[in-house]
């Protein structure tokens, strides 16, 4: 009897020991995760009238319960989709215990879009928000719980007036053609060519987005040759070209104005009527200025045809890149005839010069005449290679150093 009792006691004891078997220690059983994450909205619009108010709120639920041995920490991360929560772009927050939401204001997101994420203005983007719950300090590893949601963001509209590339387009255009900045003014874009009746568009690409430059008034009509105040936005709007022919389109990004010239109003090259040698008993000579000839010590007393480029914005603006070794004058012709058919050379021609030496980067006046005193005046030139910009309409010159 006693023996049976002892055996029973032993079996009972072994059975109780067996009851302490812990499947979590012996089998890999995945814990039941309880963390959920939600965004109040899947699409948001940043509110420029209420910058400091929360515009984006995420909420989550507690992760699974673990023993008191563990420290449970909630970390949240916000970043643009594609950045993969990189260290230089992520917005990280260590959330307080018992806090299950995180909000962001329009001002915060707007700041990060520009400063941290370097996103192009006015372009919608997507954000990822992630909650990471970690369990540390306990006796064994506990897998973290992680949830991520995505939100689409419409940024605050920014009025911009800048361009990386400008085009002319529309039904009046021969096709989409790039419009270049002029040599004389990097803020001025000009195009010259044929347009047909139809719509003229001026698309402007900036930071990867296509905008359209059009009249601030909203009108599609224009007065040829007259300045038009401009705006630039995503509205596909332009001008109606009523009749075909040569047109000159000049857009100034600095003054935010454009001028569209038709054939009747187009700018023409300078035509000079002068008496050769400045002697009014000589028959008049008529020269249309399409180039300039430099002459003087700066050319070794040889005649140099400059081969000037006429600006697309104004044919009376002429550009020459080069250098002079001394003083020169700029003649409007090398060989020409007067009304009577008498022949002359550059020494007899109308010329531009100044008794004041030209200094780099300084706009200076030119004197233009065929008078002897002018023809015998040679203008000092800055040393080194320069871009010489002659504005014959305003009788000025500026020399910009070329690296």
């Amino acid at each position: 009897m006693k023996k049976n009792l002892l055996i029973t006691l032993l079996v009972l004891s072994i059975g109780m020991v067996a009851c302490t078997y812990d499947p979590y220690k012996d089998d890999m059983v995945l814990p039941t995760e309880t963390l959920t994450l939600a965004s109040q909205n899947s699409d948001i619009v940043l509110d420029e009238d209420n910058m400091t108010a929360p515009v984006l709120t995420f909420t989550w639920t507690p992760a699974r319960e673990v023993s008191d041995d563990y420290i449970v920490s909630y970390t949240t991360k916000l970043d643009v989709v594609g950045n993969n929560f990189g260290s230089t772009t992520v917005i990280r927050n260590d959330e307080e215990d018992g806090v299950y939401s995180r909000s962001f204001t329009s001002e915060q997101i707007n700041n990060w879009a520009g400063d941290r994420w370097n996103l192009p203005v006015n372009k919608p983007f997507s954000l990822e928000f992630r909650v990471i719950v970690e369990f540390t300090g306990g006796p064994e590893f506990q897998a973290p719980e992680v949830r991520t949601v995505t939100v689409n963001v419409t940024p605050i509209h920014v009025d911009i007036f800048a361009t990386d590339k400008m085009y002319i387009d529309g039904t009046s255009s021969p096709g989409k053609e790039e419009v270049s900045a002029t040599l004389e003014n990097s803020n001025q874009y000009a195009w010259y060519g044929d347009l047909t009746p139809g719509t003229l568009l001026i698309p402007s690409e900036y930071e990867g987005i296509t905008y359209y430059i059009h009249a601030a008034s909203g009108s599609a009509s224009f007065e040829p040759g007259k300045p038009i105040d401009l705006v630039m936005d995503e509205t596909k709007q332009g001008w109606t070209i009523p009749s075909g022919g040569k047109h000159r389109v000049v857009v100034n990004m600095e003054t935010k104005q454009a001028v569209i010239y038709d054939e009747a109003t187009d700018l023409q090259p300078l035509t000079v009527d002068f008496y050769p040698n400045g002697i009014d008993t000589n028959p008049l000579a008529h020269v249309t200025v399409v180039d300039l000839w430099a002459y003087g010590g700066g050319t070794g007393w040889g005649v140099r045809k400059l081969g000037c480029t006429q600006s697309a914005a104004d044919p009376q603006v002429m550009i020459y890149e080069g250098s002079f070794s001394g003083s020169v004058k700029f003649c409007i012709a090398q060989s020409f005839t007067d009304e009577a058919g008498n022949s002359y050379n550059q020494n007899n021609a109308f010329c531009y010069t100044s008794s004041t030496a030209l200094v780099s980067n300084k706009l200076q006046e030119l004197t233009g005449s065929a008078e002897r005193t002018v023809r015998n005046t040679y203008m000092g030139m800055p040393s080194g290679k320069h871009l010489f910009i002659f504005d014959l309409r305003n009788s000025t010159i500026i020399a910009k150093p070329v690296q």
Partner: protein
Amino acid sequence: MRYYINWRAALLLSSILLLMISCGKTPSEDDSDSTEDYTLVKPAFNKSKVLKNPLTGWVMYGSASGDPSYWDTSIYVPDEGASVYVKDYATCAYIRTGWSIFNPSDGVYAWRDPSTALYKMIQGALDRGLPIAFRFVVDGRDQRANTPRFVLDAGAEYGVENTKFPDRTTPLPQDPVFQRYYEKFIAALAEDFDDPSKCAFIDAYGLGKWGEGHTVAYNSTDLGLVDDNTERLKEEVMVWITSLYAKYFKHVPLVINYHRVIGHPTGTGGANANSDKLVSIAVNNGYCLRSDAFGMNSYYGTWEKTCANTYRYKRPIIMEGGWIVSQHSYWNDPAGYRQDHPEDVRKGEFEASREARVNMMDFRVGNETQSWFVNAFSYVKQFVTEGGYRLYPDQVSLPSSVKSGSSVKISSRWRNMGWGYCPNNIPQWNYKYKVAFALLDGTDKPVEVFVDDNCEPSTWVESKPNPYEFNVKVSCAPGNYMWAVAIVDTTKENAPGLLLAVNNESTSDGWVKLLDVKVD
């Protein structure tokens, strides 16, 4: 000898043992005589609140400009979409300037004269709740006349590196005249500032170029001379100056730069063989550590990292970044910081600080502070959460009713969630901070305080749990009370001394409320 097994007895014994194992519990040895139920209180850890505790957190630098409104500097933080005050993130202020500014003539001390710029800056910081810290620079090289003229006129030997700037003198620290006047100055300073409620720490070496502890001259005709006497002089001066500060500053922490050529006439090159010894002299005189080269990977190298490891959790480390982002070519650093990206430098400094387990980081004047807030604010917040020390009890077991005159057992478990440590072990603190429990009356006043001498905050590191049991005898009059906890300053009549990182309600005195308790 033969052994016989009594199988019946063995079986019985085995069964009893197995039963005991299966029960898994040993009756507790409870010293308390309370018969009431205990409640386990779990204070919620607070991660983000700036805890204005000593020797932890951000240090706000200021100059002796005389415009105390500098301490009210606010900066627009893009991350927050709002402006914030720098002082709200700082635990103390720091002024580093020449000895001559503090002590322009013999017996004249600018910090005592309300008309001086220095006084206004110090008082301005104190008025804003920022205890002040100082470094006194004596070497004039690259700067100005840092040692007072009267000291030199009295015969202290000095040299001049650049004759174009004769005022930029370099006094010799071994000179007895220099030492005599320097001691007089430090003694006067200690009269007013050996008070931890006013003074956060003293950066107490200040020799060499910019007071950084390197490039210390011992020869007036050749300031960079290294000869047979150099090592002896270095050690003598180190013993003198650290003993001097320790003699006068008994309550305020002292700090010295750890630099591979500390006290040496040069400023660069490999580690000097005696640098370890010189640092240990300072530490043995009670000094804490700092480095002014965090984030400069050509200067803060293996020797500095080893030094930081050697004194980890023995002495706290104060960090200062080395690069001045508006002036230096930080993009040449081996870390590969990008030009025009000061945030890269801030990140490098933060990571080096984490590796060294620093207790304090820097808001230096000018663009340094600006870039912390504008370009790297996430690190400002992260250091608040993770840096220095951040103490809290994650569990406290308390009875909700007690018989007056009975004993209760309070179980508590403490963690330090910061990567640094609470330097309760430095001589100036001398373990003055202790865990204490209190019974608060209806007006939040403690009617009974129980100080637990066994809890030692300086041993709490790396977020690990530190459990304690504490038997106390409740002897207050019957009534309703509130259990509260604090880390008290035993030198201030056991008033709460360190702020705890919890979200629980606290009294205005700093007691953290835990549980209602009825005393019968």
